[in-house]
């Protein structure tokens, strides 16, 4: 079993979706329990993965490698390092909460909803452990299909516009990556990512490939100025879709940067690091201001996601500056480490924020901030959780939001104090938009009579929020296990940055 742990993790939810589908519309409860069973099983298997992985050794472990397409040299290659393991466990954790979160909320064809969620989960896990570039690409694209369906069927009023925009936008980015991969295949004769990493490339080639990769991943992250699909997709997606989108799918973009840009085109990456850093800072500062003026809660959190993902890209590319210009590997590792922690933390925090908005939406069927006010009076427990996640969102020490941001700011200070100055703006802007949101929704007098009729969160919702809260607090108070899990993998990545290909 342990030889095929990764395959099991990928295929369990994908194959598990089939009986859920077969349960059919007539037996919604069967479909719900089945999907819960599959999600829990997947989570348990991912915990096994956590136990099996040797964090101290680092490197790619638990690898499976089979020749998939002989005449093209494509392998079914899977392996994980610490970063993948962390992301996988986060994915399976969020997977359970998404199934629980949708329990009675989704009344229209719940079996299809649950099945799409499970397939999405399996494909996302696949993305995080593929070691063959073509396999990665296929999974990277395939995740669009269930998401397209999720937003399109169970989304809000403008769901068709949002889902088409989401699909075409992200597809647009990734096809250029396909051309780049085919070009690399011409040179290397393989799609194996480790071989591609060792492939010598001229600066011109690297530049073109770098931009092909950057378009693909920047759209997924998303970075300014290609973030415009995200607010639409988030606003229209059902709660579960938003949670998976924010918590896991955005990470696919930054994960791709780690696996493709860093090892394959390091010189172009270093040369254009300034570009990505500037875009990240724009995301942090400018998008923060954009979030401030949103009137729709989901849009606000969506923009704040863009800003927070800016920290991840900043942390990754600041490492380029540190390694290449001042050979400061310690600081580079810190920045990269911070970016990784931020990825995981943002997964929990944004997932929790979207779940909270979903809770409100299920009661009021509106996401406009102005329709709320004084919610704390009728839903004190909900208010408690909402406040907690809001605090995590603005990076309060003691919550997971603080750890990653702090590490990235520290590392950027070593590279250039100006970068750190702009990055630190987030502490003010983030606090401003989040606290103002909380003020308008939770506090104050009840002005809308419908708010007075809202019911306190039920057991199922409490379960989901408690799980998120536990993760957020655990990472905030004691991030060491996570840092240790990813530590050796991060330092290997940073050492790879130092190797010049030209």
């Amino acid at each position, binding site marked *: 079993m342990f030889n095929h742990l990764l395959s099991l993790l990928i295929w369990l939810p994908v194959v598990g979706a089939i009986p859920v589908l077969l349960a059919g519309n007539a037996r919604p409860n069967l479909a719900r329990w089945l999907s819960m069973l599959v999600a829990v099983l997947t989570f348990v298997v991912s915990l096994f993965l956590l136990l099996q992985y040797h964090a101290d050794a680092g490197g790619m472990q638990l690898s499976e490698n089979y020749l998939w397409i002989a*005449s*093209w040299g*494509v392998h079914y290659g899977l392996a994980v390092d610490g970063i993948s393991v962390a992301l996988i466990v986060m994915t399976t954790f969020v997977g359970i909460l998404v199934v629980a979160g949708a329990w009675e909320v989704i009344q229209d064809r719940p079996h299809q909803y649950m099945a799409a969620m499970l397939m999405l989960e399996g494909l996302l896990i696949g993305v995080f452990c593929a070691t063959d570039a073509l396999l990665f690409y296929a*999974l990277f694209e395939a995740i669009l299909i269930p998401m397209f*369906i999720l937003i*399109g069927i169970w989304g809000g009023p403008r769901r068709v516009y949002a*889902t*088409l925009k989401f*699909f*075409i936008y992200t597809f647009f980015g990734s096809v250029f990556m396909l051309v780049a991969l085919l070009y690399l295949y011409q040179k290397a004769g393989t799609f194996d990512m480790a071989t591609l990493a060792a492939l010598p490339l001229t600066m011109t080639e690297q530049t073109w490939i770098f931009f092909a990769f950057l378009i693909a991943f920047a759209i997924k992250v998303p970075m300014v100025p290609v973030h415009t699909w995200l607010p639409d997709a988030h606003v229209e997606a059902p709660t579960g879709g938003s949670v998976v989108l924010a918590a896991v799918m955005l990470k696919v973009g930054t994960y791709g940067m780690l696996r493709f840009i860093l090892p394959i085109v390091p010189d172009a990456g270093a040369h254009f690091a300034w570009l990505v850093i500037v875009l990240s800072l724009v995301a942090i500062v400018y998008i923060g201001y954009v979030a401030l003026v949103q009137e729709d809660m989901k849009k606000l959190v969506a923009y704040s996601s863009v800003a927070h993902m800016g920290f991840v890209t900043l942390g990754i590319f600041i490492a380029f500056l540190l390694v290449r210009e001042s050979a400061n590997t310690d600081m580079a590792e810190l920045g990269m480490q911070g970016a990784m922690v931020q990825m995981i933390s943002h997964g929990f925090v944004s997932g929790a924020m979207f779940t909270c908005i979903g809770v409100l939406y299920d009661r009021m069927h509106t996401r406009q901030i102005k329709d709320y006010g004084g919610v704390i009076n009728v839903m004190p427990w909900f208010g408690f959780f909402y406040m907690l996640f809001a605090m995590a969102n603005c990076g309060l020490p003691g919550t997971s939001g603080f750890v990653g941001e702090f590490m990235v700011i520290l590392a950027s200070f070593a590279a250039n104090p100006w970068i750190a100055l702009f990055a630190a703006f987030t502490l003010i802007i983030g606090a401003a938009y989040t606290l103002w949101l909380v003020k308008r929704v939770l506090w104050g007098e009840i002005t809308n009579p419908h708010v007075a009729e809202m019911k306190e969160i039920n057991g199922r919702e409490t379960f989901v929020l408690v799980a998120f809260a536990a993760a957020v607090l655990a990472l905030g108070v004691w991030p060491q296990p996570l840092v240790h899990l990813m530590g050796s993998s991060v330092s290997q990545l940073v050492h790879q940055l130092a190797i010049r290909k030209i």
Partner: protein
Amino acid sequence: MPNLNDILIMLPEFYLVAAACLLLLLDAFMKPEQRSVLHWLSIIVLVVAIYLVIAGQPEHAVTAFGGMFVRDEVAEILKVFALGTTVLVFVYARPYLIDRKLLIGEFYTLMIFAVLGVMLLVSAGNLVTVYLGLELLSLSSYALVALNRDAPLPSEAAIKYFVLGALASGMLLYGMSMVYGASGMGGTPTLDLAQLHHVMSYTKAPTLLLFGLIFMIVGVGFKLGAAPFHMWIPDVYQGAPTPVTAFIASGSKLAAFGMAFRLLDSGMGDLSHQWQLMLAVLAVVSLAIGNLVAIVQTNLKRMLAYSTISHMGYLLLGLSAASPEGYAAAMFYAICYALMSVAAFGVMLALARAGFECEEIADLKGLAKKSPWMAFLMLLTMFSLAGVPPLFGFWAKALVLEAAIHAHMLWLAIVGIVFAIIGLYYYLYVIKVMYFDQPAEGSVLQPKPDAPLRVMLSLNALALLALGLYWGPLLGWCRHAFGI
């Protein structure tokens, strides 16, 4: 005198001629209500033909009748898939034909003759055989399009098809005659494709040869439906009875690939540096016209017609690489396209009823609620046509793009990929209509309770997924056929 060996090499073809004639005779002596027997007999005939093709496969390429007929692996693969997709068309067509009182012997006989044309065409070793196969296929197709002869739209489509087809055949013949003439200036005039291969090296009239080449490419372009020779495609697709459209979009495209390969590589291979760019231009124009015009279509058959044009652009991407890898990728693409289009038309056939063609995109509204399984099959087909992994269509696209990059035509690959993004929209639109829209008032949209149709259609669409997950053997087979 032809010897026995020649006849053995052409056994599947001879067998099909005999079987088709027998079916025609049988039909004449059959009562109208017994016609279902014909249906099953025709399917058996084709299945046996597939068996004969596979069982008699020679180890190396062999020729018969003095090089007129070539039996090699390329021909074998194309024949198997052309026969196979025709079997699918027969299975899908039955309820549709019964509803419209079109279940007549002519349909089956003409279809079998058309497939015979495909088989001759892909096995051609001589310009005469090319022409013979092409005309057999085309004439049968013209008649098939007009099968429902009392309706105005099919008749109009058939006439358009015939007039344009005749023009294209004329062009092709004209080109062939020039090539023949050029081969005579400096050597013995020949129509044999293998001998024509080296004609460039000794002919005293290279300009004439090039002119001939251009005219022949027009003929190939017409058969493929590549822009700017695509004018017939939308009208014929829309006007023809859906089973016939399914055949034209599948078996006929395999034939067109075979014809292009025989004429351009076997015959004019030495001129590849000349026709490479011509095909690349055809590819770009087809991609542009096909994808852009498909966006505004409201009729599903017309939309699929423009999508065919764009898919032929991708096929040409592979052909224009002019290398064994490129041909293998293009053949892989042709097979993939045949399977996809036959599935798409299969869903339309399954949903059509008497008086309801199910040919408007809006007719599919809310299909996911009315018939989730049919909607799912169509979803697979549409994502495959759009080239989204992990479905079959994606790998075919990746292969032709790789072939183009391999042939140092990176720009062409980038054009191809840009139009793949544009093309995505109209496939997604069909899924949107099926899944995100509510069913129209009083819409029935139930698939035919015809078990063979349902089973085969399900297998067909699921094969797009299965082949998407494991396409190695098929690619290996295609590559082996071209000696890699």
